[in-house]
């Protein structure tokens, strides 16, 4: 996978993950072009399209579009399910996720994605294992913040 973008129906970018080195300018241009292209498509259209030399796989969940760019030899259907698994992970973590969760906890959305995909490839496809990793990290946060509180109380 070359990159993943999450954007709203209004075209606002909510998450961007780039797995190939591109300049800031190129990233902005790609996001702009692609968001426009996808928003212009009608609901019943197919989830795949050829765009430049890449295959774009996208799906809309409520107000958010999830869009992946994969290489020519990559499998479109399994990419569609990568998107779905990521949505499931977000949903499970936030508890029926909505766009606001991703806006206000954007860093968490990135952390979850890093546990699931790394370098553009699936790292761990088991929902349980990904969530376990994230929960462990959260636990570490709680323990350490607890320690800080106790220290400052003295």
């Amino acid at each position: 996978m070359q990159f993943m973008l999450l954007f709203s129906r209004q075209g606002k970018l909510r998450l961007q993950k780039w797995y190939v080195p591109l300049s800031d300018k190129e990233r902005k241009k790609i996001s702009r072009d692609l968001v426009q292209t996808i928003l212009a498509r009608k609901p019943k259209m197919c989830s795949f399209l050829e765009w430049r030399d890449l295959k774009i796989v996208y799906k809309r969940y409520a107000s958010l579009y999830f869009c992946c760019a994969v290489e020519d030899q990559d499998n479109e259907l399994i990419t569609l399910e990568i998107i779905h698994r990521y949505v499931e992970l977000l949903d499970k973590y936030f508890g029926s996720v909505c766009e606001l969760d991703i806006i206000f906890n954007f860093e968490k959305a990135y952390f979850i994605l890093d546990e699931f995909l790394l370098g553009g490839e699936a790292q761990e496809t088991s929902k349980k294992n990904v969530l376990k990793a994230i929960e462990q990290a959260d636990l570490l946060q709680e323990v350490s913040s607890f320690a800080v509180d106790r220290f400052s109380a003295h």
Partner: protein
Amino acid sequence: MPAVSKGDGMRGLAVFISDIRNCKSKEAEIKRINKELANIRSKFKGDKALDGYSKKKYVCKLLFIFLLGHDIDFGHMEAVNLLSSNKYTEKQIGYLFISVLVNSNSELIRLINNAIKNDLSSRNPTFMCLALHCIANVGSREMAEAFASEIPRILVAGDTMDSVKQSAALCLLRLYKTSPDLVLMGEWTSRVVHLLNDQHMGVVTAAISLITCLSQKNPDEFKTCVSLAVSRLSRIVSSASTDLQDYTYYFVPAPWLSCKLLRLLQCYPPPEDGAVKGRLVECLETILNKAQEPPKSKKVQHSNAKNAILFEAISLIIHYDSEPNLLVRACNQLGQFLQHRETNLRYLALESMCTLASSEFSHEAVKTHIETVINALKTERDVSVRQRAADLLYAMCDRSNAKQIVAEMLSYLETADYSIREEMVLKVAILAEKYAVDYSWYVDTILNLIRIAGDYVSEEVWYRVIQIVINRDDVQGYAAKTVFEALQAPACHENMVKVGGYILGEFGNLIAGDPRSSPLVQFNLLHSKFHLCSVPTRALLLSAYIKFINLFPETKATIQEVLRCDSQIRNSDVELQQRAVEYLKLSSIASTDVLATVLEEMPPFPERESSILAKLKKKKGPGAVSVTELEDSKREGGELNGGGDRGPDTSAMSASNAVSRHSVTSNLSYVFQSTPSPSADLLGIRSSAPAGTAPASAGNLLVDVFSEAGPAAPSAAVNDDGFLSSAPPSEDPAPPLSEADELLNKFVCKNNGVLFENQLLQIGIKSEYRQNLGRMYLFYGNKTSVQFASFTTSVSCPGELQSHILSLNVQTKQVEPLVEGGAQIQQVLNIECLTDFSDAPLLNIKFRYGGALQNLTLKLPVTINKFFQPTEMSSHDFFQRWKQLSQPQQEAQKIFKANHSMDTEVLKAKLLGLGTALLDNVDPNPENYVCAGVIQTKGQQVGCLLRLEPNAQAQMYRLTLRCSKDSVSRRLCELLAEQF
């Protein structure tokens, strides 16, 4: 699990995000952001040391601002400080910031690398994973330099936690993609391959991406993965849906891993081991069987996951292309999907069937679905699906269904989306030509094309129809009649006028017998369009008029009057004015005989690959047109042109013999040249040749129109290139290969052959030379099944040449940056020899294969002897000149051992291949060989005499060269000593 209660929510951050969301305008947002930036800056600069929490909060705010699309130029140092925090949450934000806002400041990089190093050696798996994620996210060269040797160790160490192994595998993959030279698997190879056997499915899933990428690059070293992959796949495919617990996704066992395994197997040919192959075929059959079973769930996720595996299995079946039974089953399965209610499946089935159509085993099976596909073209609501249907029709077309398919595509064109019209036009034009049984059908089709979609008919298409009509005398009368009828339409497309003008100018006489299309009627019809046309078309029409004067003397007065009128003879356009003046003069002073010679019918065009096909390849990327298709078209093109036995040399010769004629030929070709559209660049090929060489090039100009070296669309190419290449290909060209000289030597006495070949790439060469000019065709073949990206080539003349005098002028156009797996692309070089030289030009080729940069430099086999003109002379003349060249430095001599056969015929063939004349009866000793020739450079001619004395007993030769220039003697002597 409500998120807010998790960890320590950053209240300040939440407030700031709310503020931004409440901003009513872009200006208000920018104002709020600037205020925040000022605040953060003062906090960072302030005297009070910030605690970790505040630092984390501000860094996070900066990150948020950056992700909104604003520039951030500070905060890196604070983020780096967070990396060394003991608190996980601070470290995590620090890493996130670093990964998103990569910075190239070397001091920072040093600090970051230090922090990563500490975390990697911390033995705390969570910290290790964070550090590995950061390396994978940044993936810079600096990180590769620092960690590429460490990570393989972590990956295979026995005590590494599974989650760390997973991160390490993908981290390594990312580094390998950016800096393949730094990631050396060597001793780790076998242990990495054996990760396919790991008990933990997550480890296998992560590792297989790495293994696939490495296998594409080094198939031999990793080939043991084939049997491991087959047994893993077999275990998954035969497992019950609950066996794999959480790796089962909507009742489908391990769909991601299955797809990856099937993809890995596509890096290799079918397994040689019978047992392994049997097991694999069984897997593929099971997958095909499962597709027929009723679904275990109604959820789309279930069918998507199941079908993802099915499509990947079909890809593997197509890749093997050796199991007719499986291919036909795959085709039937896809046939079912063609009518599925899911648009996604219809799209993928059409796409996958396109590749099946090119297999001999399944081509017929694909053809049975023609009606469904035509229906898809007509009724699909999504243009991307219609596009796939058009592609498939194109792929399944053969002689049996060509008429139907072309008719359907033509009728679709009338309503087709603008975005795909041009491509459709090219496809129709190609199919019509390729499968033309009778040429009247071909002519009708192309004229229909112009009528229906004239704006989308590119120059190549109408050049081609003219080329074919000129080469086939059985269709000329029909073409003239049809084009005459087409021009009757009150509003016809300018492209129609171009074709009409050209064809009536050549063959109008064939229909002039009918009073309804008498010469004057024809002329008036053409001239009625004249004023609405653009300058290039008008120029073409003027040429048609002068041809009319020759064909039909009775039109002379009328046409002269037209030429004489002010709007022609004083036209503000120089080209039109010049034509009017010249044609008027020509028609008044030349005798009928002279006119007849000058304005004779155009000679047949030499056989060339259809430029239309080349154009389609450009549009679609080379993969769109398979290699066999190209070969087919060459073969069939030959049939079509009817002039297959006539090489380019003959036509050039006839052109230069008929000096008077080619002045018009070149003039007519100028019609094309003055066309201001980008395709006119087609003619730019010869622009390197100086004007003085016109006699040779005039005949070739038209040839060039049909040659395949069209221009790449420059702006688009740049964009695509920049986007795809994972790093700008700024690396210096590699030094020439060690065997470059050896490869060069193979081509001293021949002009065609394979220059270079390795596992990835094959480079073939065809070249022709005339006087001091040469043209070389380079064919780059991608031997793998994977696309080459950022494919660039450059030619340079080495040191000596560059420094003071340029000896060779080599011109070429950049090739397309993508070479699909199995595809071949061509590049044309035009070479001009300015003065004699000894170093061959260097050809550097760079491309990315699976992310790894390939950089390779070869010597182009352009040697001084290529510019020889043979000189026949008598024994007396030879010895006289031999004596004249008696200064010691003019002679070069070498005695050397025979390296090759000393057979007479072989030697003669080599000496002829050298380019000189082989002179009989000159040397008193009949065993010896004597040759003579003149080397043509732009500045001077160098006479050369050669004598080769074989000594069969001793297996030795003595070679003597005498040339009018001493450097040439030396160089020829060096070159030739390697040949015998």
